[in-house]
């Protein structure tokens, strides 16, 4: 669902976005609701991939939109609306993990509630563990590489959009991705050893 929705978002016609934006800026709550309906599950998915916690992702998604409404007047329309939303979501996540005492630990896998009597399925656990390792590895990347990787793979933003929001060339973005892969391979390789 997320994949298809993200696709839909990134291909929303420019004119359609402009119409929504103008309506929201004029205080049209229905237009704002339409925007939320189109984008919230993709924003949630992006944040979930960053934090690995469904409840936290929901809270941060809500916070993302709260910030977005406040910052709407500053949106210049140079990037796509979802790209702009993703940037806010990413910053919201970073702010969250930098907040003292609210940080979700990145060095231990999620615990399992002992009250839950559901039998563990090995395959599911392996997949979860792999995803967690990967998430931890991504979080260890330098900030510019981390943003680029997460925006591209987890936020679904095209290279061109990331370049626009980062105000650098697409070639530079591709170089970032290459460097990120090299580092990820190294980090994941160390963990395996």
């Amino acid at each position, binding site marked *: 669902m997320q994949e298809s929705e993200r696709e839909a978002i990134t291909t929303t016609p420019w004119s359609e976005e402009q119409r929504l934006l103008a309506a929201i800026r004029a*205080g049209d*709550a229905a237009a704002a609701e339409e925007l939320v309906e189109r984008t919230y599950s993709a924003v949630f998915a992006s944040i979930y991939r960053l934090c690995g916690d469904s409840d936290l992702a929901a809270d941060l998604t*809500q916070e993302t*939109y709260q910030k977005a409404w406040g910052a709407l007047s500053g949106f210049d329309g140079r990037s796509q609306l979802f790209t702009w939303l993703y940037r806010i979501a990413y910053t919201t996540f970073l702010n969250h993990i930098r907040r003292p*005492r609210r940080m979700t*630990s990145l060095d*231990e896998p999620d*615990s*399992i509630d002992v009250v839950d009597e559901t039998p563990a399925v090995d395959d599911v656990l392996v997949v979860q563990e792999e995803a967690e390792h990967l998430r931890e590895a991504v979080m260890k990347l330098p900030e510019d590489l981390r943003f680029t990787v997460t925006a591209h793979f987890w936020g679904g933003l095209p290279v061109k959009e990331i370049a626009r929001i980062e105000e650098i060339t697409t070639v530079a973005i591709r170089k970032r991705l290459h460097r990120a*892969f090299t580092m990820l391979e190294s980090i994941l390789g160390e963990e395996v050893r």
Partner: protein
Amino acid sequence: MTSKRKAEIQRKLTLTAVPRPPDDLLDRIKGDIPRYLNVEEERERFSRSVGFNLRIAASIIVMLSIASLIFLVNERTPQPASLAIAETPKPVVTRNTPAASVAAAPAQEEVHVDIVQAAPPPPASVAPPPAGRVAPRASVGYLQDFVADARRERDDEAPKEEVGVEGGVEGHVAGGVVGGVAGGVMSGEFAPQMAGAPAPPAAAPEPGSSFGYSDQSTRAAAKTAAAPSLIPEAYAADLALAPKSVFGISIDPAAFRRIQSTIENGNRPSPSSVDVEALVNYFAGAPVKPVKRGVHLETEASPAPVEANGHRGILRFTIDTATIAVPQRGSVPPIAKDARLEIEFNRDAVERVDAIGDTTTLIPESVLLHNTSVTGLFALNLKMPLKEKQLVARVRLRYRSIEDDRMHTIEKEVRGKDFAKQWPRASRRHRLASLGALWGESLRGSHGGVDVARRAEELATQAPNDQRARELAVAASASSGGGTK
């Protein structure tokens, strides 16, 4: 880097599974829209809020005027008002809850009678629990078994004893609330002060006494032996004004006084009358440094205070909300709403979990007040050896702040190393809460009272000014047959 490896990483990055967003998320986000987009509506709400506050202010002014008028009229009568209060027992309560006095009086009597009935008759019989019900077993997991045994025993006795207590309490609470205790709820910390105010002349508060578990209520309870007839009224006032529970955890501030009074009268409290959670909360008390703002979540772990055997531990969580001054008859304002507390245990690290007390399910709080402290404890059987960094438990508190109307999440993790410290290195709050739990369970029939007395005595000796450590040491010693000091 090979292209194959690169493709593998790309695949992993792309194929991360994502759960569906929570069902209520869309509504939550949409719910924020009007507030952020419609400035006019916000202004209107602000105006309404100001108008509401003005109306309240006007009401207060009117009430003060009436009070002044009554005072002036009384001054012109031959007898002073204070003398009239001293002559009758009821007006003391009337002072705080004017309309409730008639309804409250019978309820007080009920509470008194029931507490006395609940205690076993022979004064010297701080005897072992009845045969066949609780058999202390030194070789069995203490922290786990005492919970299970005590629950079993309590269940056996519950029907005949709890009915009376509940009836009495409910009767009085209803009276108190109907009688106009503004807001109907008080925080645990402030309640004793309210309870102290209406006390009869013999236990009357001194001027300038502070908030918190003030000396007033302590003194009133300390005088139990000398003036036992005064106690039920203080209890009744406590019960009427204080909140009974937070997240379903009992924080009844009068629980300890009731037990103390029973013991001082030479009786042993009946197991079913011992509210272990309330004792935990009484001894955990308020934070050493008052919380200035917002909501604070504290977690702490330690080995079990006695018979830890290298693998038994105690996990504590405490939620403290910001402390503010509240007028004596005022209600405590809320600080948060929609508060949810979640606790997860890692089954790789924990073999068995027992919630200490009666609460097995944490209930969400629709409203969380200022001046609130609530503590919960878990007894854990750990899977040894634990790694230092191994996650043992995660405690998560979510709430919507009244101040900014946003959801907040506070999360604390407890790891293996937290259980490795020695018992004396745990905070006083943690140690007192744990010992309070242990003592409560011993009153319900488990063994361990002597150990509690010894540990509490250590605490009291280390800090002679720590009144609660002293109270626990004395009470535990008395109830375990050691006699009060």
